[in-house]
């Protein structure tokens, strides 16, 4: 079998000429500039994370309920509960993220900062795993990895608009992607390990990480599928044996949780999480994903095609295709959004990094087949020119990506001067600029309306709401948990979960409606009104709006019983 390579041959171009070429020097300079650009986004990310950690209330819708789940676990209680009984509360997320954060409740009491710190650290671990995967590919293929491309790949993950705005939240999504990425990186070469004990240990660790991802968020099922397909392609019998083992472990935890919660884990976290798909939202988010990350998606897709026809399919490629295809499509479900692309972004960062490093090393062997005869052989005489062009194209990919994901605050010290230099005008709340939005602030349906920095005025408004709850006699029904927690009041209901259950026909609500009709709540605070319609109707019949408080870009509507 003969190999056709696009790499320049010794006869066509000598290594000495290449190393001294202008192209290489320009390439290095451009790569350095790309590194500076992505490091700038890292600084923006750290500043944003620090800002959010100082903000003591809900920033993203639902963060407070994640904190409530964490508090319940810290007390040794399950958050999967019967929502027909007072206080009508249940969680719809798996437990691992909250269990990991629970010891911090013991140490620091209820607070948002440590959950946000965990999410932030999770993204750093993911970025590190991406960089390691890219570097390791070079070591395995050529004996040396490309450190700069590896660093750019990890930083590219953190520079993504999507990763930026969900990373430092008290939400479990970033941690799920961390476990997924670690699992994929651990398992990518597991089959090639010749030492039996080491291979088994690697497979066990990798599959435990997949289970950890699944028990952080249900969406990781797609990564489990990718891992299963990869292992099956590489060695079907091993895939069946280890797949059964992982299913037994994961299934046993599942059955235990269902039994221990009297079936509420199954009802609240699984049945209530099957939501309707809005295809238009998915399509809009796919377009946005490509417009922001196309500079990474195109090389990633090229590497997938290369592996499909000229090499072995890697776990990274299968993960990328499934995460983009299935999870991306699921972004259009109720409760979904651009965060659903985070796994595909991590996979794209790995694949594009490997593509870039191999291109710089002219490491593209093409085995002889009908496709290489058709498409590669005719290009062979252009190989030296293509190699020189590639030296410039690779850094331009990262520079193009850096331009596409532009986001920064425009009124904070230092950032203000940079924004003025770039002639960037804010298009989001609190003078933030986000390239995912149009100049007048419009954005695709499902794209999270966050990313801006909070202000002292937001914090003051939050404390104002806390004071109002403290002064209320009797129960207060707040759509966000943070105010009730800060006021020392009981958290009543998780509205979005009631809505999830209601959409699946799993919610009655008569006990809560009775309390509303009896006007047992002296205060109701609405934000997005994500309650089942009949709850909203009951509130409308028995309560009246008397004041609004603006905080973090939202209007918090205060309602009291009608006279």
């Amino acid at each position: 079998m003969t190999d056709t390579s696009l790499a320049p041959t010794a006869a066509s171009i000598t290594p000495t000429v290449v190393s001294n070429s202008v192209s290489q020097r320009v390439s290095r300079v451009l790569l350095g500039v790309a590194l500076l650009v992505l490091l700038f986004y890292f600084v923006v990310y750290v500043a944003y994370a620090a800002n959010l950690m100082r903000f003591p209330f809900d920033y993203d819708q639902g963060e407070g309920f994640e904190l409530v789940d964490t508090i319940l676990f810290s007390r040794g209680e399950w958050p999967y509960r019967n929502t027909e009984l007072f206080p009508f509360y249940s969680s719809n997320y798996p437990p691992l993220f909250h269990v990991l954060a629970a010891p911090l409740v013991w140490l620091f009491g209820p607070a948002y900062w440590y959950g946000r710190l965990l999410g932030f650290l999770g993204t750093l671990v993911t970025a590190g795993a991406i960089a390691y995967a890219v570097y390791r590919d070079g070591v395995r293929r050529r004996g040396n990895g490309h450190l700069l491309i590896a660093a750019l790949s990890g930083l590219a993950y953190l520079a993504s608009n999507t990763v930026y705005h969900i990373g430092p939240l008290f939400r479990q999504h970033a941690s799920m992607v961390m476990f997924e990425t670690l699992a994929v990186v651990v398992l990518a070469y597991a089959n090639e390990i010749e030492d039996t004990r080491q291979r088994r240990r690697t497979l066990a660790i990798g599959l435990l990480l997949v289970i950890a991802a699944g028990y952080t968020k249900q969406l990781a099922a797609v990564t489990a599928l990718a891992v299963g397909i990869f292992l099956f392609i590489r060695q079907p019998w091993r895939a069946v044996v280890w797949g059964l083992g992982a299913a037994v472990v994961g299934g046993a935890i599942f059955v235990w949780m269902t039994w221990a919660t009297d079936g509420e884990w199954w009802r609240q976290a699984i049945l209530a999480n099957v939501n309707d798909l809005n295809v238009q939202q998915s399509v809009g988010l796919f377009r946005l994903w490509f417009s922001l990350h196309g500079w990474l998606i195109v090389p990633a897709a090229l590497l997938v095609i290369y592996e499909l026809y000229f090499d072995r399919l890697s776990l990274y490629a299968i993960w990328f295709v499934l995460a983009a295809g299935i999870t991306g499509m699921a972004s259009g479900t109720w409760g979904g959004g651009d965060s659903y692309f985070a796994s595909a972004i991590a996979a794209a960062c790995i694949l594009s990094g490997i593509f870039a490093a191999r291109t710089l090393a002219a490491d593209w062997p093409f085995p002889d087949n009908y496709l290489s005869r058709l498409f590669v052989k005719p290009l062979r005489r252009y190989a030296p020119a293509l190699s020189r062009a590639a030296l410039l194209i690779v850094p331009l990919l990262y520079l193009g990506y850096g331009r596409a994901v532009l986001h920064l605050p425009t009124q904070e010290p230092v950032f203000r001067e940079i924004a003025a230099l770039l002639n960037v005008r804010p298009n989001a709340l609190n003078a933030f600029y986000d390239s995912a939005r149009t100049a007048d602030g419009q954005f695709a349906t499902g794209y999270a309306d966050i990313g801006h920095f909070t202000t002292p005025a937001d914090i003051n408004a939050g404390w104002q709401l806390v004071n109002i709850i403290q002064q209320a006699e009797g129960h207060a029904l707040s759509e966000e948990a943070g105010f009730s927690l800060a006021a020392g009041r009981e958290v009543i209901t998780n509205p979005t979960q009631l809505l999830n259950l209601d959409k699946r026909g799993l919610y009655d609500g008569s006990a809560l409606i009775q309390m509303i009709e009896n006007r047992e709540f002296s205060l109701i605070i609405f934000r997005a009104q994500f309650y089942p319609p009949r709850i909203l109707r009951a509130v409308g019949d028995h309560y009246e709006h008397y004041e609004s408080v603006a905080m973090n870009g939202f209007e918090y509507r205060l309602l009291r019983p009608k006279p």
Partner: protein
Amino acid sequence: MLDTTFTLTKRQLGLILLVGGLAGFTGILAIDILDVGREGGIGPAQQIALGLCAVAALLGLSLIPLGNRPA
């Protein structure tokens, strides 16, 4: 397949994708044929699924000539 050195070839993967794609395509169309009381015709999600099945079948077809190279 029980051999620990067995690995799927490009041809085998191609056949799996071809058969799976064709079966999926037929199955999705069959929903409308068998479930005659169903209204609305082929919806957007079905159209996307049909497209993906067709792509899988074509990909499979293009892999079959690659023979016994490991997938």
